[in-house]
């Protein structure tokens, strides 16, 4: 073993070693360059972002004490009464929380249905018209990029305060994101079933129904569920601009310094999102499990 290793001539060994070291040096320089670029960018961004570390250090006690202040006063002796005091408006908040969840649900449903209808026309492997495809993809991009709060603000002006504006705003955003994801899922399918249906004389609708749909249905459902969960989370801020849901109360509580209300509502949102997270994850795992069998 050793002899075979030593059998490499000294000159060759030296050349190899030199090559290795050159390579290592080159990579070092590369990482240094990346770090230097990053540092320059940080400096520029710091100027634009008005980073003021001294201010942060001075006021960080505000941050920690804020969490101290929003903590409810709970004592062992009067635990029940204290909790009741903390959640004095539990029925009202629960109703608003249900509002938020239902707004997210309706918006996800509308957005997913619209995205479902359009995605097959936007996928490069199914749709024939290049021009139509380009247009739909740009529409998706527009709906995805314009922030949903901007839509919400405009809809509140147009449709009045209330959940309708929230539903529409989140639905448009969902349409944009799901449209992109659905299109990508369709573009990644196995084309053989599609060709099979096509060769037996199937038209576009039949090709989609029997060739493409069985392959993508489960991933569509899991994307939609994931989006639902995200929408519950972002639906909780829609209320800040008057688009319905629990965000309104949270916003008022933060702005008017009703400290314990803030923690009560936040805790409710976190628990609700966590439950959503667990439930949708279960369903998504089951869906993807089915996918593997197929």
């Amino acid at each position, binding site marked *: 073993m050793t002899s075979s290793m030593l059998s490499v001539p000294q000159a060759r060994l030296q050349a190899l070693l030199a090559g290795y070291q050159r390579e290592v040096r080159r990579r070092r320089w590369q990482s240094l360059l990346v770090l230097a670029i*990053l540092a320059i*960018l*940080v400096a*520029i*961004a*710091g100027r*634009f*972002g*008005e*980073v003021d570390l001294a*201010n*942060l250090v001075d*006021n*960080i006690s*505000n*941050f920690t004490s*804020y969490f101290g202040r929003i903590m409810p006063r709970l004592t062992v002796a009067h635990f029940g009464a204290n909790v009741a005091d903390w959640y004095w408006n539990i029925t009202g908040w629960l109703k608003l929380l*249900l*509002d938020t969840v*239902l*707004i997210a*649900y*309706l918006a996800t*449903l509308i957005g997913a249905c619209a995205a479902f209808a359009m995605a097959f026309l936007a996928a490069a492997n199914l749709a024939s018209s290049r021009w139509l495809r380009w247009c739909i993809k740009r529409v998706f*991009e*527009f709906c*995805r*990029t*314009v*922030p*949903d*709060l*901007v839509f919400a*603000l*405009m*809809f509140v*002006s*147009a*449709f*009045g305060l*209330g*959940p*309708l504006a929230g*539903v529409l705003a989140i639905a448009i955003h969902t349409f944009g994101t799901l449209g992109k994801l659905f299109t990508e899922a369709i573009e990644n399918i196995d084309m053989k079933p599609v060709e099979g249906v096509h060769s037996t004389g199937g038209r576009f609708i039949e090709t989609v129904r029997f060739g493409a749909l069985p392959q993508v249905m489960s991933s569509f459902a899991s994307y939609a569920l994931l989006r639902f969960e995200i929408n519950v*989370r*972002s639906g*909780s*801020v829609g209320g*800040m*601009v008057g688009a*319905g849901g629990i965000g309104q109360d949270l*916003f008022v509580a*933060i*702005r008017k310094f009703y400290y314990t209300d803030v923690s009560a509502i*936040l805790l409710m*949102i*976190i628990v609700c*999102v*966590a439950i959503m*997270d667990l439930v949708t994850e279960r369903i998504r795992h089951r869906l993807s499990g089915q996918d593997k069998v197929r």
Partner: protein
Amino acid sequence: MSTRRIMPPDDSAAVLDRHRNLFSHSPLQRVLAFAAPFCIGGLAIFAVWWLSIPFSQIGPGLASLGKFIALMFPPSTGGHLDLLLKAMGETLAIAFLGTLIATVVAFPVSFLAAKNTAPHPTIRFAIRRCLDTIRGIDALIWALVFVGVVGLGPFAGILAIAVSDTGALGKLFSEAIESAEERARESVLASGGTGLLAVRFGLLPQVLPIIAGQILYYFESNVRSATIIGIVGAGGIGLQLSEQIRTYDFDQVAFAVIMILVTVAFIDGISSRLRFAIIGRRTVT
């Protein structure tokens, strides 16, 4: 035209029998497949009723929406292009620094939250729950809190994005670490390396490309979310945008939206280039 049969007709029963499991579903599956659309539809109807969605408002609402859109043309800067450009710069700065700080914080934490590198299960559990809690609160709410701490301005936005992304990135990084191949780490340990060396040479080379891809992806999405964070006064173009919508200056709204679209498309282009350069053509998200 004569049909050519590949399979004699009498065999079809046998074939059907062999693939019986593809055609017969259990009663539960049938019920589920039948009931699912009804449940989805029923819940939607309940939601419409519960939220008391006013259908009568849709007509006039669409009419006034049409008016807004008509007002958007032609888009105009309203005479303060410099202000808008500065706000856009702030937005980019918020997204960049926010992502960077979140990465720097989340990276070490994620090792404590990953199953295969956590020093103790209880530490892992505690850190996981912390990350979940941080993630459960929207960036906009963090922005409200930080506006109270460091005052109005983009710095509050940076901190808000940094905190809320620490939760998300910490979770993603720890999942990447957990899914890494154990063999490389074991071989470093077997040749006498310490635990730290094993992580450096056995684990990092595997997870770094995945992590880099995720960071770039989050940077892209942060550029999008930094555009709205200004609504609560945390810097960026959101402040101008919300003011213009409230004052019905829709030509300026259109201009700001176009600016956002162009910037986001530009950033997307750059970062997807970088992502492909780092992890190859097939993206891992």
